[in-house]
């Protein structure tokens, strides 16, 4: 019997969720996209152009077909070879991955990680759960493995533009060393990034002894200098602060993106988000207030947010300081803040007063944080407030730290260069100073005879242009080193692979400068205090062992081995400090703060921020990061200036990508603009790290260089900018409308009040209030648990039944899972052009919704006022593994079928590419390989006879076919590399599941009661990477599994439940802990409160 399914009408709620301004205003362009499987917006191409390229293609294909007829390939079976090791390698079992613990050095500490290696090739990185501050990895750490395989890495020492080798460099170096011995290193300058490596610090201290007149400079493009200065002034030297989010009930952030790009500790995301997912009613939650000029990830998870121009953050800090001073009876703080606070407008104060009250009521459990790059006064106020709130020792820990050497800062470098005190500059920084601290090198090139520059670099950079010697740098996965994480836990960075391109680490270069290492084959000189070493031992290895001996208090083989195995040395955390707070110093620092510049249409502010993908620009050659959509704007392959919709309209801009001209002082920059809801008015945010020149096509000339706008290398908020409309439009590849699902309460959220009153509100929201019974489904297939009544169901007795839950209350939207999935599952990069056509291949799609008041009914013209401060929520969507999957019923070749353990499996070799399945997927979770993205480089152009230059993908069989040979080394051997014409999608990392099941069968052998994989022992790649621990995966058939506990949560709901697909992935609703006293009444209705249906 045929049954006609009537979709029930969407029920009314008072919140409306939308993903783009197009959806918000319901523009015709958007509705057009909604009905289609793939984005029809063919990047600025007309039908005619498309037709002509099709004809070109046919022409070429015809020629190829004719030619191929002339040659007949041989029918003989090709002889394949097996080559075993000649000498067996310890630990390696061919066919089994080996896991090593290591850590990635970061500016603020370390990212502890586990590296998956296959026969000596690192292929995937994931968080180290053993490490005290180990959770997942952020997107940069996750993607860093691709940098190892960058084909355009520096491969050889280069001298004056000519390739040479290390022994030539050693010859030069020997000469320099002899000279430094004579003159004490006069005129020698080292430029580094700050690091938390004890070995490097030790070597620099040794170096200072060996060459007392040489100078060491340190700088970080995305620096924390102002913060450090404030801490030093108020708490004294040798103290570091570590926020303890696990203990913080109330957090107030002054433009501090602490879960995103303003990392204060490795555990911030994990600890903070853990407190935001209540399981039962009346459970305690933390609360977050934030003031910021643009939307950040931290803003997205906040309970109260107000867009505020960055120039006004000092004022806001002063107002908060004044209010807290009043409440806590701290007149010193109150007075210090008074002058600046007086300039605040009434609305801002009105917003801050109830927040201050809330913070004070939770004294000892509250915390105030300030964005790293704000003025020293902001940090002084924040520390003063924390002091008044009793945060020190409670939510803000003081740690004793010691550097061991005294670096000078970059301003000093500029002065020394100008006064010609430097004749040899050795650049060991990982960043690119000629690009991100441009004025230093402007100084350099203005000198009539500039000093010799020796540059250790992983790829050709802007700085390379100045250098005499360019040395290839080793990746952190190729070299020995060590690092301390934020809390001081000591980790050894161990190499996974011999340097692919003959690179050397910073430690190697320092050792060679100390004469303890010889490049170019000569035996190294072993340090005296090191542990027993083999004669061929590497000097860096010895240096790390020597430092380990010092840190561990004596050499101990077992401790060393445990450190290597676990990834950290137990009991090596920093000691706690208890410096007294010098509250009197606040006044003098506060006095340094200038009166905020007036921000207006004619004098806007420009805020430079680290980019969510490029950081300060050092990841420019990383294709995964380039293609990962920015978590806020969903922009790929470029950056753009973010402007509030109101300012956007006021500037006379029509659509995203329209150029604006930003002039600061004498410098001006033409940059495409993006209308960004929730942005402060008359403020322009430009993410840094773009507009570089690179020898790799991935990073070459993408986006626009924001560094160029500033005159020094210090400031990140530029005032008095003139912004005007410029000519032209730049094509931006934005993914936010790609793969759009037709919306019916896909994201669900509510206030804590609502949750306490009605814990399972999420299960009855939207369509689920009148969901048909579970057995009723549109699509056939087995469902439910196998039993006598349901013989076709899934076997929970004998099989595993996999399931996943994603907690939206914990998900911050950082997109690390996207990259983790890409790395684990060999997902190709498709390039900007293909992204613009809606052909992104990433299996996980991070949907970013804004929400505003106004239910579904009042879809009308965009209400600019309403767009001032919408709320933001992220939802990762991958294949939901439906039990009765719509895709399976339409596949003509049974290429997608169900497994006995509940997976919706894909047999890629069987797929013929009809794309029926993708058409029938209500979650739009399937991706199609329009081209052979793995074999053919999608980023380049190929020159063809007769036709001329065409995009490589469109050159058919004549295109370049050898893309990125080194990149192949990264591929996971357990996952098929898909070819053209094949659909692919998330499989819950089936390779990991199968391998776990096989391992268990190998252990169980003939014991039939021991065939079930141990509870919670398998993790999917996205789950293992999630820094917020928002993804849980496991065996639904095992009653003890955590995923079952999550599924029982009252917040659990399935997306599009009413169509009866019975997805195995479900979501937990987000809860916001709203303070009823806040003047958030500007949001017409409280977050997520559903009104009763009018019907």
């Amino acid at each position: 019997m045929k049954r006609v399914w009537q979709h029930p009408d969407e029920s009314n709620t008072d919140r409306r969720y939308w993903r783009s301004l197009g959806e918000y205003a319901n523009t015709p362009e958007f509705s057009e996209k909604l009905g289609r499987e793939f984005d029809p917006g063919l990047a600025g191409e007309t039908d005619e152009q498309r037709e002509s390229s099709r004809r070109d293609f046919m022409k070429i294909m015809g020629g190829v077909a004719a030619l191929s007829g002339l040659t007949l390939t041989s029918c003989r079976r090709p002889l394949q070879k097996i080559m075993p090791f000649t000498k067996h390698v310890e630990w390696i079992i061919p066919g089994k991955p080996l896991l090593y613990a290591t850590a990635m050095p970061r500016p603020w500490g370390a990212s502890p990680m586990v590296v998956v290696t296959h026969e000596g090739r690192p292929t995937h990185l994931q968080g180290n759960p053993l490490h005290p501050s180990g959770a997942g990895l952020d997107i940069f750490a996750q993607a860093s493995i691709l940098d190892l395989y960058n084909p355009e890495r520096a491969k050889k020492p280069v001298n004056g533009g000519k390739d040479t080798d290390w022994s030539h460099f050693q010859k030069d170096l020997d000469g320099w060393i002899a000279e430094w011995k004579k003159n004490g290193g006069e005129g020698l300058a080292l430029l580094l990034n700050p690091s938390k490596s004890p070995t490097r610090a030790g070597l620099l201290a040794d170096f200072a002894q060996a060459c007392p007149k040489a100078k060491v400079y340190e700088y970080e493009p995305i620096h924390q200098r102002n913060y450090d200065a404030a801490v030093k002034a108020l708490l004294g030297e040798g103290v570091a602060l570590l926020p303890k989010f696990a203990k913080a009930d109330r957090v107030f952030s002054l433009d501090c993106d602490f879960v995103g790009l303003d990392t204060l500790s490795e555990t911030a995301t994990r600890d903070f988000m853990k407190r935001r997912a209540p399981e039962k009613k009346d459970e305690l939650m933390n609360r977050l207030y934030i003031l910021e000029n643009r939307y950040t990830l931290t803003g997205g998870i906040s309970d109260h947010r107000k867009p505020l121009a960055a120039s006004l953050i000092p004022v806001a800090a002063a107002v908060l300081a004044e209010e807290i001073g009043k409440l806590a009876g701290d007149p010193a703080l109150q007075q210090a803040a008074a002058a600046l606070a007086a300039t605040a407008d009434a609305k801002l104060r009105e917003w801050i007063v109830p927040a201050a009250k809330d913070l004070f009521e939770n004294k000892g459990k509250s915390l105030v944080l300030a964005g790293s790059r704000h003025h020293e006064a902001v940090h002084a106020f924040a520390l003063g407030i924390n002091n008044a709130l009793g945060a020190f020792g409670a939510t803000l820990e003081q740690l004793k730290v010691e550097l061991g050497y005294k670096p000078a800062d970059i301003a000093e470098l500029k002065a020394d260069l100008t006064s010609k005190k430097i004749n040899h500059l050795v650049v060991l920084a990982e960043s690119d100073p000629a690009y991100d601290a441009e004025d230093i090198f402007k100084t350099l090139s203005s000198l009539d005879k500039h000093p010799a520059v020796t540059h250790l670099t992983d790829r050709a950079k802007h700085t390379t242009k100045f250098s005499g010697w360019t040395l290839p740098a080793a990746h952190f996965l190729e070299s020995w080193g060590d690092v301390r994480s934020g809390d001081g836990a000591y980790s050894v960075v161990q190499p996974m692979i011999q340097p692919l391109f003959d690179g050397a680490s910073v430690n190697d270069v320092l050792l060679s400068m100390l004469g303890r290492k010889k490049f170019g084959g000569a035996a190294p000189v072993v340090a005296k205090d090191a542990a027993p070493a083999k004669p061929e031992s590497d000097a860096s290895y010895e240096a790390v062992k020597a430092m380990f001996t010092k840190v561990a208090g004596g050499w101990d083989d077992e401790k060393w081995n445990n450190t290597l195995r676990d990834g950290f040395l137990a009991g090596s955390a920093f000691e706690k400090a208890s410096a007294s707070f010098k509250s009197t110093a606040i006044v003098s620092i506060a006095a340094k703060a200038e009166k905020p510049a007036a921000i207006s249409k004619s004098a806007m502010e420009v805020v430079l921020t680290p980019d969510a993908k490029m950081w300060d620009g050092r990841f420019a050659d990383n294709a995964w990061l380039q293609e990962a959509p920015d978590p806020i704007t969903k922009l790929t392959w470029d950056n753009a200036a973010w402007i509030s919709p109101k300012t956007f309209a006021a500037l006379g801009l029509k659509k995203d990508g329209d150029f604006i001209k930003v002039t600061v002082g004498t410098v001006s920059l033409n940059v495409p603009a993006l209308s960004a809801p929730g942005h402060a008015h008359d403020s322009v945010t430009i993410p840094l790290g773009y507009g570089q020149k690179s020898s790799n096509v991935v990073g070459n000339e993408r986006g626009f260089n924001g560094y160029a706008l500033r005159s020094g290398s210090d400031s990140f908020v530029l005032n008095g900018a003139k912004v005007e409309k410029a000519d032209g439009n730049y094509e931006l590849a934005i993914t936010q409308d790609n793969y759009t699902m037709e919306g019916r309460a896909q994201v669900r959220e509510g206030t804590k009040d609502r949750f306490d009153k009605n814990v399972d509100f999420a299960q009855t929201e939207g369509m689920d209030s009148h969901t048909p019974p579970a057995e009723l489904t549109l699509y056939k297939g087995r469902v439910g648990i196998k039993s006598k009544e349901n013989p076709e169901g899934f076997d929970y007795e004998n099989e595993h039944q996999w399931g996943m839950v994603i907690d939206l209350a914990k998900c911050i939207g950082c997109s690390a899972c996207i990259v983790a999935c890409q790395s684990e599952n060999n997902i190709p990069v498709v390039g900007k052009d293909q992204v613009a056509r809606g052909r992104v291949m990433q299996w996980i799609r991070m949907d970013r919704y804004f929400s505003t008041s106004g239910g579904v009914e009042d879809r009308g013209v965009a209400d600019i006022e309403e767009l001032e401060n919408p709320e933001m929520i992220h939802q990762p969507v991958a294949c939901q593994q439906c039990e009765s999957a719509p895709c399976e019923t339409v596949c003509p070749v049974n290429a997608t079928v169900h497994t006995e353990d509940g997976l919706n499996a894909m047999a890629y070799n069987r797929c013929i590419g009809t794309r029926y399945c993708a058409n029938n997927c209500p979650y739009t979770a399937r991706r199609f390989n329009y081209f052979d993205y793995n074999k053919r480089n999608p980023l380049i152009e190929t020159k063809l006879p007769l036709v001329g230059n065409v995009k490589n993908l469109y050159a058919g069989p004549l295109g370049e076919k050898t893309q990125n040979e080194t990149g192949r080394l990264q591929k996971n051997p357990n996952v098929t590399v898909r070819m053209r014409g094949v659909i692919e999608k998330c499989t819950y990392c089936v390779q990991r599941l199968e391998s776990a099941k096989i391992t268990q069968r190998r252990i169980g052998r003939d014991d039939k009661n021991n065939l079930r994989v141990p509870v919670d022992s398998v993790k999917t790649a996205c789950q293992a990477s999630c820094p917020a621990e928002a993804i849980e995966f496991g065996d639904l058939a095992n009653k003890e599994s955590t995923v079952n506990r999550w599924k029982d949560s009252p917040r659990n709901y399935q997306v599009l439940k009413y169509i009866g697909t019975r997805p195995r992935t479900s979501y937990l609703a987000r809860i916001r802990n709203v303070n009823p006293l806040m003047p958030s009444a500007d949001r017409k209705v409280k977050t997520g409160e559903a009104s009763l249906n009018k019907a």
Partner: protein
Amino acid sequence: MGNQFPRWTNWIPLKIAIMAVFMVAGVSLGVNYYFTPKYTKVGYEPTQPVPYSHKLHVGELGMQCIYCHSFAEVSGHANVPTNQTCLNCHGPDKGQIKKDSEKLAMVRDADKNHTPIKWAKVHKSPDFVYFNHSVHLNRGVSCQNCHGQINEMEVVKQAEPHSMGWCLDCHRNPENKLRPLDQVTNLTYKPEDLTREAFYGNLAARGIKVADMAKLVADEKPESLPQDMNQLVALATKKYGPKVTQLEVGRQLKEHWRIAPPESCAACHR
């Protein structure tokens, strides 16, 4: 008007039709035979760089498969041994057996020059097939089931088609192949060589109840089940004859080890 065509031409269409039937049958039979792995793969016997004889080492000297293919039981991949393994016996400073043999020159060179021997690959599954040795060996599937009588081969050749249908034959009816775990690497194993006492005794020693085993033997008449081992052996003898049979072994193992080979795509294709 006379007949333009002679009378026999009336039969031409029928003859053509009959011929066509034979042709089609012949072609399809041919394709079915010659174009399938049964023909294209079975018997593939490339020449190896070193004339290593499995017949000598395994068949005559009785070496264990696992001595050389040491990770077959722990890894998905059954490794080809390093030349160090060869030199354990043949090495000048080790076992010294035939240490100067001309045939072993390549092995000694490989050790000296660190250049691996390039063995010719015999058994090749496509890249999209993820076969795992360890799970088969640990669950009662023998080397011999897929690789044939290696112990009788001077030069290794492919004995079975290794096609998807052939894999599925066994995944659907594993009882036809399963054998006790201690017989997995025994290439001369025959179920007839087992004794019922030992076979059922070993299963009982692993905690399997006599009654449960008996249920499988006497599936038709479940009223009078034997309660001890003697009765069970007697019952099995009555049903399967004096010798142990493959089906008898296979059905017991399948049930009591819970062998449920996956038949879904994801088991082998990812």
